[in-house]
């Protein structure tokens, strides 16, 4: 896998601040460069936090947890642990504390701090998913994968550790992250898809080519999913992610079992969303967003087209491999029946060469597939997440507008009250309305802030996404070209070895 340097390294404006953080953390070895946020140290961080936005912490106390994101509706069972705040060190938070309202939302500004402070950090982490093992029998069987993390980052207790996870654990992780971060504008990488057919074959115990391929495809997808998730600087620090990577026992993710009902619910919500989208006529004050949305629409179409082309290419290459193998067999038979010794030998050699080439074709087909096809598939799904984030922004705007309209109505009602002639009821009603208006004013302000925040987050996320996209594709293309060159060179070697044999026929 390719090491990815954090892009924030380039943007880091405050080198001095980092050093102060570094010295106060106890767990890192001295040789490491200025590290990621060591949240073990509360001192200097907290000061800066309080300096910037003292109000934010307290405003959260009145904030309602937004419940209208579809992910939240569907996946309710195991509550996500609270998202990180700079005050609570991640390693000590294992049990969810849902009761306290201010833990459920984040200090938005603190994220800015985190992102900027880790500027000098180099992303040094490698996750591998390996050793798929079938556990259990029959329909209750499942595949357990070994998730190994090698890292030198201080966020982790060890530098090299591994745990056993099953597919539903990955889905559980994603659902937790999605419910926490999607609706405030973070692009959460989607988890690999479920496949009933594929898994059933594995459960039933068919040890054949297609079920092996399925397991390998899934293993690779899980690995890519985890790497993408931890490359995201915010998601990396999330306690759920850390728990997933580190703790040997993970509570079973129950919600992912009921595929049919969850899927159905999701479909219903999608339909509701579509209707909503049509009715939300947002006054886009920022042309950037409109342009970006169009850009992602186009990208979506292009990537899907590319994906379809690659799939047909992979299919044909596999066919070529099969046909080459068959031809090799018939050439061998012909060689056996031939009397002329030199010709017979040449034909047998030809058969051998063709067999080797068949293997090459298979390898090439795999390269085509695992490099391109899966990458394109991943990005098609990622773009769905990106679009979702834009939708959330629209919803946030809608919420803000709704509060504003309600406020307007209440103010009008208040004005009307002035003309009411019943003095005894008047004061009470006036007080009530005043309270409501104050509440609504707070909501409007919060709505505006939320909207600003999500817009800001989305800008950053999109910029990061685009950079990652280019990097990803570039890396894959380089790998692919290298494999192509290697295949062709091998092909040349095989044929050059065969040539003297052919010349020796007469």
């Amino acid at each position, binding site marked *: 896998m390719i090491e990815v340097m954090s892009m924030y390294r380039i943007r880091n404006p405050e080198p001095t601040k980092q050093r102060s953080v570094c010295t106060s953390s106890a767990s890192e070895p001295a040789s490491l460069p200025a590290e990621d946020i060591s949240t073990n140290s509360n001192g200097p961080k907290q000061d800066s936090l309080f300096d910037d936005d003292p109000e934010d912490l307290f405003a959260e106390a009145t904030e309602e947890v937004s419940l209208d994101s579809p992910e939240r509706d569907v996946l309710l069972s195991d509550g996500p642990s609270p998202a990180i705040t700079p005050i609570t060190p991640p390693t000590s938070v294992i049990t969810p504390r849902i009761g306290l309202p201010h833990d459920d939302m984040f200090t938005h500004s603190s994220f800015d701090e985190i992102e900027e402070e880790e500027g000098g950090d180099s992303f040094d982490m490698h996750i591998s998913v390996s050793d798929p093992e079938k556990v259990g029998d029959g329909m209750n069987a499942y595949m357990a994968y070994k998730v190994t993390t090698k890292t030198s980052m201080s966020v982790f207790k060890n530098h090299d550790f591994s745990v056993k996870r099953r597919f539903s654990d990955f889905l559980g992780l994603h659902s937790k992250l999605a419910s926490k971060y999607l609706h405030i504008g973070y692009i959460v990488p989607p988890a690999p898809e479920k496949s009933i057919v594929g898994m059933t074959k594995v459960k039933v115990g068919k040890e054949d080519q297609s079920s092996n391929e399925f397991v390998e495809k899934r293993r690779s997808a899980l690995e890519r999913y985890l790497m993408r998730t931890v490359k995201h600087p915010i998601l990396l620090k999330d306690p759920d992610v850390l728990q997933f990577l580190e703790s040997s026992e993970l509570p079973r993710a129950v919600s992912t079992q009921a595929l049919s009902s969850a899927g159905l619910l999701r479909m219903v919500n999608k339909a509701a969303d579509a209707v909503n989208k049509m009715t939300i006529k947002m006054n886009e004050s920022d042309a950037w967003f409109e342009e970006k949305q169009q850009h992602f629409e186009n990208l979506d179409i*292009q990537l899907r087209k590319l994906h379809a082309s*690659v799939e047909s290419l992979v299919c*044909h290459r596999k066919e*070529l491999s099969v046909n080459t193998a068959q031809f090799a067999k*018939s050439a061998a038979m012909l060689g056996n029946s031939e009397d002329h010794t030199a010709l017979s030998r040449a034909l047998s050699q030809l058969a051998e060469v063709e067999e080797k080439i068949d293997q090459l074709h298979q390898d090439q087909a795999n390269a085509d597939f695992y490099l391109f096809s899966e990458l394109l598939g991943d990005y098609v799904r990622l773009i769905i997440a990106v679009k979702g984030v834009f939708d959330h922004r629209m919803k946030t705007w809608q919420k803000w507008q709704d509060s504003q309209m309600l406020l307007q109505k209440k103010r009008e009602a208040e004005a009307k009250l002035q003309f009411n002639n019943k003095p005894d009821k008047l004061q009470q009603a006036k007080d009530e309305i005043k309270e409501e208006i104050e509440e609504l004013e707070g909501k409007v302000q919060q709505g505006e802030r939320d909207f600003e925040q999500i817009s800001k987050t989305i800008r950053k996320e999109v910029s990061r996404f685009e950079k990652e*996209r280019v990097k990803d594709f570039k890396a894959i293309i380089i790998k692919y070209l290298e494999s192509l060159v290697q295949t062709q060179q091998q092909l040349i070697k095989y044929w050059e070895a065969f040539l003297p044999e052919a010349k020796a026929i007469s």
Partner: protein
Amino acid sequence: MMEEVKEVTSTLSVDGHNIKVTEVLKDGETLTFLIVSLKLSSTGEYHVDRTYDDFEWLQQHLFSQEDVPGIQGVIFPPLPAKAQVNASAKVMKQLGFLGLEDWQPYSKALETFLRQIATHSILGKNKAVEIFLTSSDPPGRQRVRKNIFNRLSQAVEGMRKEGHKDVDEFFQTERDHNLVLAGGAKTAAERFLDVVQTEQKIAVACGHFSTALHLCVEPGEDLNKQAFSKLCVKLSEVFASMKKNITSVAENNVSTLGLGLDLESRYQEAEKEMLFRRTCKLVELETARRNAEKAKPVKKAAVSVTFY
């Protein structure tokens, strides 16, 4: 017309090793082939154009040489099946490699056919060959009536005769061996055709991918967009050249091993037919002998009776 071919022995005035089928012309439904042969005595070339019917005329004349001793023992160079513009799928399948690449392999196969006939020690002496190669007018396109040199597929009894055990061990082994080789060559040719056709499909898929990549190019000032566009353009070029590579690999495959396997397969069939003719003659001979044996005692008795 028939007088021409009564003169069986003649020497060819052109170089049999250097006959070329240079062009294929499509005229509506028919294909016309341009044949160029080098003169032996003087410098210069004969340019003639022939259709498939002319080739068949030639073949028929060669088959019908009844006064050449042992003609039926010749393994006749195989003529490819008829080529048609807009041929049906069945015809294309039968043609195999010869139906590909816009009739180029087909022309090559015809060329091989003519060369082998012209250089054949017995067949090359037939006047029909000279006429075919040198006469500017197309030779008579009437069908010469078919004689015993018919295709194997017609005779149902052929199947019975085919299994008839031979008296000569050499020929029995040859027949058995030929059966194996014919089957092997046919299978190998068919499988290789599959390989080539899949290669062509891959070429097309590479082309599509290359085009789709090119469509991903976006103009714009944004650095990421530019970087991505550049990647797409480069990759598109790679796949375009892959397409070219695989296309030429497929073409080379056809013109070398493809044609070779096709010829081998058809020649084994031609040998099979020759051996079958021999077997038929063998069966005839044995039947005649048997009848003669049966007739002898009867006649003897009849003759003996009349004497009394």
